[in-house]
């Protein structure tokens, strides 16, 4: 038997947690705060999301958690009051970021091999904006820095996790990615973190 009143209390509490947190909160932390299971929290989140239909706010699943945020339709109004989000990334920087996102962990040289162009400037920009970070060094000559994406990357693009990235087109690319992943697996088991 469900208890509507307890349910409503939990749903309201959940709403408060999301507002008070601002950014995305992992389900586990929400469940801990509410004192219910994660499955129960997921159900409450779904209910809450449904109750926001037709409203200005929405519940968004992003970066391994849930957040309460404004609907994109109303951005015009919002930006009249608060400053707009950071500048959109340039094409070349996005391209660099795409290679890092799909290939991570990846070195500068590997990014440049795919793009056929120097990418240090773009990598630096991405580091500055905290969209990528150094995740270690590849064992071997010069032990080059390995880059990976950050949580902010997921938030910036509204992605739930890395599996949520748009699929890469092309069968050969899939093969190459798989081969690359296998190679990296070997390299990592060779010696993690110098």
């Amino acid at each position: 038997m469900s208890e509507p009143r307890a349910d409503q209390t939990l749903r309201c509490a959940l709403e408060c947690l999301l507002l008070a947190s601002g950014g995305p909160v992992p389900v586990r932390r929400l469940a801990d705060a509410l004192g219910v299971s994660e499955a129960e929290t997921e159900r409450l989140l779904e209910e809450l999301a449904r109750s926001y239909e037709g409203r200005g706010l929405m519940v968004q699943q992003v970066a391994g958690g849930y957040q309460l945020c404004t609907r994109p339709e109303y951005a015009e109004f919002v930006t009249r009051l608060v400053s707009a989000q950071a500048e959109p990334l340039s094409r070349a920087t996005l391209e660099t970021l795409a290679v890092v996102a799909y290939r991570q962990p990846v070195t500068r040289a590997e990014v440049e091999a795919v793009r056929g162009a120097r990418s240090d400037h773009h990598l630096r920009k991405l580091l500055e904006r905290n969209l990528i970070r150094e995740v270690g060094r590849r064992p071997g000559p010069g032990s080059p820095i390995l880059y990976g994406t950050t949580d902010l990357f997921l938030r910036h693009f509204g992605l739930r996790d890395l599996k949520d990235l748009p699929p890469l087109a092309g069968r050969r690319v899939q093969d190459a990615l798989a081969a690359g992943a296998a190679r990296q697996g070997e390299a990592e088991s060779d010696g993690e973190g110098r």
Partner: protein
Amino acid sequence: MTERRGPVVRVAGFEGPITELVQKAHAGEVDLRDVHLGEMVQRYLQTLRQPLDLEEVTEFLWAASALVEIKSKSLLPPKPQPEEPAATEEGEDLARRLEVQLEEYRAFREAAEALAALEAVQRRVFTRPADEASAGELPLVGVTVEDLFAAFRRVLERAEQKVEEIPAEGVTVADRMQFILRTLRQAPGGVEFEALFEPGSSRLVIIVTFLALLELVRHRQVRVAQAEPFGPIRLYAGSADP
């Protein structure tokens, strides 16, 4: 979007984006033996204007080289079957690698465009900004290196008051990094900057601890927050995994 598929070319039996021509030629739908590639390149060069659209030019260059390669293969007599397996395999391998690379690059460009579309939506989504009032949870308050240094100087001055000789302590940055992380993990509410330096610590320990802190901040394993100008600086365990 023409830029995505390369500049449009017109040759015998085909008119459209050059990347499509590569695909068709590769699939055998367009016979490159009828196509004057030199003329195609000449015409393209005539249309080029300053400033160059480097992305488009690169796309053209890639595609044109792929066409030259496909055409040269079609012009050569069919390879005598098993005569020199090593040499032909090498050639094929190179061609295959080139194709893979081209396709790979194009796939990443498409992925970049998909990301741009996602970004355009997400830029229109706003969350409640973390404000100072709730700094306990997510302190996004700016601390400059100068602030940190000023605090460091205060600690050093405090140490100056009781001068000691420096014994050859085995203090390493790595040790102090461990120490700071341990301290912060035990204090979810953060720790005041000065508290990291036990009273009576030698200058060496203080300096090495400070270096360790800078290193941790760089790796985002420690977050630094200052609620107000000249206020106390608080340190929190960061989100990055050690």
